[in-house]
């Protein structure tokens, strides 16, 4: 009997509890335990992914109780893929974070690492669970730790974090309300069991309300336009290592939960044909792509620009989910992976720039290309990938989204994707121009150089990862993602 599914979150939880205890003894233990815990969790999820690919899905009954009675963990191609992505990004960012955290918030290292581990544990718990209410519990673990982590940055961080807390609580409460409607309609909380009992209830208004509440909740959590209002402030004012940890994965995990609801709980054809949820998500995604890109062009603060670019990238994921056809969903999932790498890389670069120069304004970056060559090389790769230049990973996910849009026959979506690539080019090339061609006063960056190896190395890994993902994308699609989207290929009914 394999304990793998439960080992992934439990490793993270245990290391989170050990950090405060060990942190009393020596502050540096906190970092060591966090890295080891994240590494083990990544190893477990990678092993889980390989096992799932060779033997099919793993179901784990917690407490030994069979599903409708007890809680079930499900490791299938989708959840194993997501768990591997989340733990890998978490691990890389944690390795990076040590110097950055010591630099920005030296007094609070121990609780910060404990909460970072709880955040990862909550996200992984959302991913592997097969129970609707268990998902809520882990959603709240990850949200609470995110509120706290985001509150300790700049002066304005607590206000941004409080606003996020209120919107996040609305999301959590809506989710519970939706689960309540589902429970009273079906009598079960297990996702597979609910899915089995739902088709008889497709005419029920209570089920429709449940779907609407759950999708609003997850839309808020993933910052889908126009529910993104909390995102820019929060990303801008949090400590840079925290933003680098949260931005690439947290909204993606909510997107994953949305996909889980679409594929596993409600059948795709219910949300496509009987309740127009998927087309609403697709249109909101398209609107978010344009809005985020335009707002990103208007920003002069580098972090804020990246935050708005996140809104636009989440729009891509929403568009792919909303298309609800195999190509669109492959695009969305591939974009979750690619964007996690690209955004993590970009925020790590932002953190390195702050570490060395303390600046945020794009206009003050002139000449950094010569001073921080390796960092800026990683930035260039990630930026090109965001724009969608072919050898980099970002091109391929956009390509699948384009194919999905064509498949759906909606030319507005196709035009949106093409146009937004141009807009992304505008805001990233503006930065690249400053970095490489801008003329600086030599005195400003006299002692600036690439950051220390513990920060530089993860940045370069992620930058290289973007290129590697671009090369490997056909393998990822054919070996993993096509398994995930298989339910969409089946004839309706």
């Amino acid at each position, binding site marked *: 009997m394999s304990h793998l599914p439960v080992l992934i979150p439990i490793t993270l939880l245990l290391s989170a509890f050990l950090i405060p205890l060990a942190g009393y003894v020596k502050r540096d233990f906190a970092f060591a335990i966090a890295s080891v815990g994240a590494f083990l969790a990544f190893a477990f999820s990678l092993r889980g992914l390989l096992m799932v690919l060779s033997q099919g899905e793993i179901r784990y009954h917690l407490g030994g109780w069979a599903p409708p009675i007890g809680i079930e963990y499900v490791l299938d191609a989708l959840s194993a893929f997501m768990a591997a992505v989340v733990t890998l990004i978490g691990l890389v960012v944690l390795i990076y974070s040590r110097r950055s955290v010591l630099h920005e918030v030296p007094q*609070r290292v121990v*609780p910060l690492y404990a909460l970072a581990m709880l955040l990862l544990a909550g996200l992984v718990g959302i991913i592997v669970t097969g129970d609707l209410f268990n998902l809520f*519990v882990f959603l709240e673990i990850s949200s*609470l730790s995110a*509120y*706290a982590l985001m509150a300790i940055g700049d002066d304005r961080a607590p206000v941004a974090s409080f606003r996020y807390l209120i919107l996040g609580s609305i999301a959590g409460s809506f989710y519970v309300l939706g689960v309540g409607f589902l429970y*009273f309609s079906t009598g*079960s909380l297990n996702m597979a069991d609910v899915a089995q009992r739902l088709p008889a209830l497709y005419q029920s208004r209570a089920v429709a309300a449940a779907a609407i509440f759950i999708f609003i909740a997850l839309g808020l959590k993933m910052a889908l336009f126009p529910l993104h209002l909390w995102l820019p402030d929060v990303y801008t004012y949090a400590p840079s290592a925290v933003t680098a940890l949260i931005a690439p994965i947290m909204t993606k995990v909510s997107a994953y939960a949305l996909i889980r609801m679409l594929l596993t709980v409600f059948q795709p054809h219910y949300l496509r044909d009987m309740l127009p949820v998927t087309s609403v998500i697709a249109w909101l995604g398209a609107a978010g792509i344009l809005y985020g890109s335009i707002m990103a062009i208007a920003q002069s603060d580098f972090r804020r620009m990246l935050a708005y670019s996140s809104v636009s990238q989440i729009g891509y994921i929403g568009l792919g989910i909303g298309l609800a056809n195999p190509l669109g969903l492959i695009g969305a999932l591939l974009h979750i992976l690619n964007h996690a790498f690209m955004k993590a890389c970009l925020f790590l670069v932002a953190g390195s720039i702050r570490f060395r120069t303390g600046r945020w304004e794009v206009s003050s970056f002139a000449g950094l290309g010569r001073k921080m060559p390796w960092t800026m090389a990683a930035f260039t790769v990630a930026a090109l990938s965001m724009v969608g230049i072919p050898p980099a990973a970002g091109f391929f996910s956009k390509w699948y989204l384009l194919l999905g849009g064509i498949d759906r026959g909606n030319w507005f979506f196709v035009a949106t994707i093409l146009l937004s690539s141009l807009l992304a080019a505008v805001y990233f090339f503006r930065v690249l121009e400053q970095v490489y061609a801008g003329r600086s006063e030599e005195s400003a960056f006299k002692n600036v150089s690439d950051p220390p190896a513990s920060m530089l190395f993860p940045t370069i890994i992620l930058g290289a990862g973007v290129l590697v993902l671009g090369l490997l994308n056909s393998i990822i699609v054919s070996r993993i993602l096509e398994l995930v989207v298989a339910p969409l290929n089946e004839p309706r009914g």
Partner: protein
Amino acid sequence: MNWYTAIVLALFFGLLVYAERDLPDSSDASSPARTHVAPTYIEQSYEDTRTPNIVTSVLADYRGYDTLGETVVILTAGLAVILILPRSDRRR
């Protein structure tokens, strides 16, 4: 009240009223919540756990993992407050 607050509230309340029709009535003995999973807890609890209080046996055993999660939530809140509001160790 802003106009958009009013619209959001009206939509929200409207959705709740709309959904009411198909929610099972509490006097309906054949409703899914009363026939599907819950009876198993009531009938099995004593046999499985020797615990007469079914809420306790469900909370700590059948759905014990939820309770572990909620304990972690409380702990997260404690750590969060320690992070946000560090106490000064200085004595006056």
